């Protein structure tokens, strides 16, 4: 499989090597001499207005710099996730890069394009999401984390803290990745013999932290048996912690959240949030570009998926994480 791909890519590279100077002269104002030596990696992933993605983008940029390749980051639009997932892949393929790195968030939409790219001789590396599909699509590898495993780890942690009834809060209704995480949480909760349920926030509220906090607070008033909350981004997690604070439920209801922010780290220190799931998006971006470049250049790639999460931040390792967070902006999260 791999070898076959690499031959494709050699042919593609030859073709590209001939066409790139022409393209470069047509498209860019840069001199053509620089363009023919440098490889181009197209990176299709999430938008930078979602706080998960800036560290991923930072990682991709840092890797591109280190590897001496040209990075073309093409973001999808989460408000129109399916249509833009298709459009961004069309754009990436049309640019004929040396390799495509893609976040396969909506597999039914993205998979045909991955196959199309592979058939056109462009190697594809699946990044961050798409763990069940990448092999069937003909991609040469996967780096990221398994959504359900994040949920399972969360259920385990919350149960360990004493929770018997966990609420999984979904902040982007219709996002399959976030839903898969809550499904994993439900499966693990069932296995542990405890209850769990989902709360999908209304689309209009998801960006309004104050409203999210009050929504969760009101929901808890009506469901007093809930004693554990898992949220899927740091803003929602800190909003949940604020809701518990307001209702004097801190400590009685345990909170875990995905993603890391300054305030979320503070809440770990204050004991208002029990743990954070560090998805390490920087690694998704960094490894994505490194592996794609190595594969396009040498035909070398790690065998099988490379896991970047779930890694857990709690009171035991917060000092190190806080130090890195404050020293290197956008490696763990935004400052």
């Amino acid at each position, binding site marked *: 499989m791999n070898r076959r791909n690499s031959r494709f890519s050699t042919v593609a590279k030859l073709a590209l090597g001939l066409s790139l100077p022409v393209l470069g002269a047509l498209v860019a104002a840069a001199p053509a001499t620089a363009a023919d030596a440098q490889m181009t990696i197209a990176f299709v992933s999430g938008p*930078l*207005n*979602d*706080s998960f993605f*800036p560290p991923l*983008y*930072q990682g991709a940029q840092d890797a591109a710099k280190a590897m001496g390749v040209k990075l073309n980051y093409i973001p999808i639009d989460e408000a129109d996730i399916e249509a833009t997932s298709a459009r961004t892949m069309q754009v990436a393929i049309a640019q004929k890069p040396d390799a495509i790195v893609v976040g396969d968030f909506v597999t039914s939409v993205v998979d045909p394009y991955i196959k199309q790219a592979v058939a056109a001789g462009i190697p594809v590396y699946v990044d961050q999401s798409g763990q069940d599909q990448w092999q069937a699509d003909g991609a040469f590898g996967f780096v990221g984390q398994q959504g359900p495993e994040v949920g399972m780890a969360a259920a385990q942690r919350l149960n360990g803290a004493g929770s018997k009834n966990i609420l999984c809060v979904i902040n982007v209704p219709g996002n399959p990745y976030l839903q898969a995480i809550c499904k994993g949480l439900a499966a693990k909760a069932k296995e542990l013999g405890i209850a769990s349920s*989902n*709360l*999908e926030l*209304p*689309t*209009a*509220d998801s*960006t*309004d*932290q*104050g*409203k999210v*906090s*009050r*929504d969760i*607070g*009101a*929901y808890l*008033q*009506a*469901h007093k048996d809930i004693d554990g909350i898992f949220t899927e981004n740091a*803003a929602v997690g*800190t*909003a949940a912690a*604020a809701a518990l604070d*307001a*209702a004097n439920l801190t400590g009685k209801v345990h909170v875990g959240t995905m993603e890391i*922010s*300054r*305030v979320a780290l503070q809440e770990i220190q204050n004991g208002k949030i029990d743990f954070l799931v560090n998805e390490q998006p920087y690694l998704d971006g960094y490894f994505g570009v490194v592996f794609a470049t190595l594969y396009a250049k040498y035909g070398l790639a790690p065998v099988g998926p490379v896991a970047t999460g779930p890694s857990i931040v709690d009171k035991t390792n917060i000092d190190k994480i806080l130090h890195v967070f404050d020293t290197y*902006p*956008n490696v763990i*999260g*935004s*400052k």
Partner: protein
Amino acid sequence: MMSSKVEGSAPREVENIPLPPRRSALTSALLRPEAGGAISALLVFIFFAVMAGQNGFLTVLGTANWLDTAADLGIIALPIGMLMIAGEFDLSVGAVVGTSSMIVAICSGYYSLEPWIGVILAVIVSAIIGALNGIIVIRTRLPSFIVTLAMMLMVDGGMLGIAIALTGSSSISAVPSGSAQMVFASSFNQFHIAIVHWIILTVIATYVMQRTAFGNWVYATGGNAVTARLAGVPTNWVKLILFMATSLAAALSGINETLTFQNGNITLGSQYVFTGIAAAVIGGVLLTGGYGSPVGTVFGALTYGIVSLGVFFLGWNADLTDLFVGLLLLLAVLANHRLRQLAMGRN
């Protein structure tokens, strides 16, 4: 021809005579633009008090919850309502909320500056965006719906680009301190300071609309801009000032929320594009302009606050939340509309 003018008679009355002529007390009360909004707010409150009272809706915390939500929205809906009375829309409010949020966070969180510097910068940028909205609408005579839609995209994209270039991120911690924290982020028993801002702004808006020449100009501009201009009303200035007021209110809301939750986010406030207009319409502002009142918009925001939080107190299936919010809002607007027709039919 004649029948289509029945509805239009209300705005004209408001333009010429601020207070309706002598009628029965009930009829004149129901004829006030805020009557429908007040009744909507009362009805949804009773509904949730009965259905969700035992789940904490009536507790101090429950009350603070929906009142805070109404205040956040109400601050923005107030000038949106006035702008709609003057016959214009502003769809860029959400983007201005996100932009001011980012400015405050970048200044206070990323560069560790005194919070007031970020606040003042956010106010200046917002005022400029509002002025641009106004100037483009006045100069080009394009519909404000399109102009402010384009502005929304440009502001969102521009701020994202600046934020990524400066900080590499679109979500940044904000550190409130000192007097800025007191003015924008304090709360008493979960009743957030935004409620105080809202009350002050409502008093100012009501005074301006009822007691000043500017208030009359606003109604006249939205009622019939050509006639108003012929009568010497500076309609362009009216619009410019209202566009700026709307942007400034959006900035206030962004500053409040950013310093309260210590997190600046570019997507903050995007829902106000819809809920701001919804609150104004529930409160009796006509989409076609010329009719409505600030107090009505207050009731509209209260209705939205009660409904959108009340559904979570019901303890029903949370997946149906949006369905209920939409349904109850539709009923509120319908009731409002019928009430106005009934009240006018009676006289």
